[in-house]
């Protein structure tokens, strides 16, 4: 009786993956410490293309076929992976931007890029080691707080 119960518990655990948390990184030179989830969506659907300094925003995403990528797209952007990619193909084709978001292979790679490119903004899944990056709070909630909106 114990073994089937244990197997059931393991199967249930496998069916409920660990919590996904997405962090938003910018370069420390950007005068921003908080971003609303509406502004974040606006950047990642190409409606907001400039920083207040008029520089072009360079958005970076994690691989979109990961749990964090698909969850972010579904919960924040409201699109699936294919629709998101085609949406950005359309933005470039219509001349509304000149390139789609960059795709970082890892959080460390994204953080390194943000540390050296003030115009970049990145979505990552682990705390960065770089000094020149800042982790933003979202909707006034820090990533450590219970109400952080990018944790699912």
């Amino acid at each position: 009786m114990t073994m089937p119960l244990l197997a059931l518990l393991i199967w249930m655990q496998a069916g409920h993956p660990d919590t996904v948390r997405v962090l938003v990184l910018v370069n420390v030179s950007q005068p921003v410490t908080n971003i609303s989830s509406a502004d974040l969506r606006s950047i990642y659907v190409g409606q907001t293309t400039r920083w207040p300094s008029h520089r072009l925003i360079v958005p970076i995403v994690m691989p979109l076929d990961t749990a964090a990528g698909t969850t972010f797209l579904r919960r924040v952007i409201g699109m699936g992976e294919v629709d998101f990619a085609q949406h950005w193909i359309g933005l470039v084709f219509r001349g509304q931007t000149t390139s789609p978001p960059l795709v970082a292979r890892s959080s460390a790679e994204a953080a390194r890029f943000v540390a050296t490119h003030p115009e970049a903004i990145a979505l990552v899944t682990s705390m960065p080691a770089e000094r020149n990056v800042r982790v933003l709070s979202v909707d006034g909630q820090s990533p450590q707080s219970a109400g952080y909106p990018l944790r699912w």
Partner: protein
Amino acid sequence: MKRLFVLLFCLAAARVRAQDEISLVPPPRWHIGGFADGVLRSAATNTSRHVIELDMYATYRFSDAWSALAEGIAEREWRPADADDKPRIDLNLERLYITYQRTDAFRLEIGETHTGIIRWNEREHRSRFLQTPIELPAIARQPQEDGAWPTRFVGLWASGQSPGPLRLKWEGGAGAGPGSDRDVIPIFSDNLSPAVFLSTSVAPRWIDGFESGIALYGQHIPSRPEPLRERDLTLFTNYVNRGTEIRAEWARMTHQRTRDPRTFRNTGYYILVSKRLGGIAARARPYVLIDHLDLDPADPYLQEATNEKAWAGGVRYDFTDWFSAKGEVRSERALDGSRRGIVALQVGVSF
């Protein structure tokens, strides 16, 4: 058709190779892309026609504020039932303009671009790959496809959006529209057609993916024997969010003679509804399109355009984000009131 599949295979191979080489570097200043589509249409009334289309575009970013875009289309059409059908490739320069944009509140385009009087697929930038159905709605067809509305013009085109919660958008343009020949935009001749365009819309932040607005277009057409004044009004609304796509437009075009009060009214609308399925069918997007165009038969400026009363239903299937196939059944009412059915298949890639 063999050439089409060779072309599609080469483009797909190039795409796979490019994906292998991706690394995180700043976006390049230039971007060259395109779409290749093959469409097979089979009609029971010996009006079958097949099309291969290559739509290439390039952008170049001079700085954060200045950029340029060029788009050209090559198209080959077959009409198997037409014995006189000669092999011919149509080449068209679709857009060519320079953009100045320092903020999201103001953007300026200078050159040849689309008017915006028809919003189909976001301001009438056509691409069969990006649109959900195979066929364009009748009001979105370009003059060279016997469409009625003036979708292209040459001049200044400005747009912007407010940062507020209502996200008020505006667009305006002034320049030269199509002349007495609807396929041609004369710039340096007596046939010049001065045109103005205005549009405003709202896309509230609290309804993700929703936009609704109005567009106005006015033009002087130096047609013979008598010039015409054109006045167009379009109402549009889109909702694209969480796999649901709803697009609808209602458009009215009037042509008025300048020496007598005779006015010709033309009206059209379409409604497109599609939904990305879930689970194992998440690559599929079934859709329904209702398409209506009612032209004044006496309008002297639209003699090549034809009425349309049609509905279409189909499925778009995305194998990847750059390779899709579509199947569509379309029912059209002919001039004599009878209906004809068309079955169409499309394969398309983005590269």
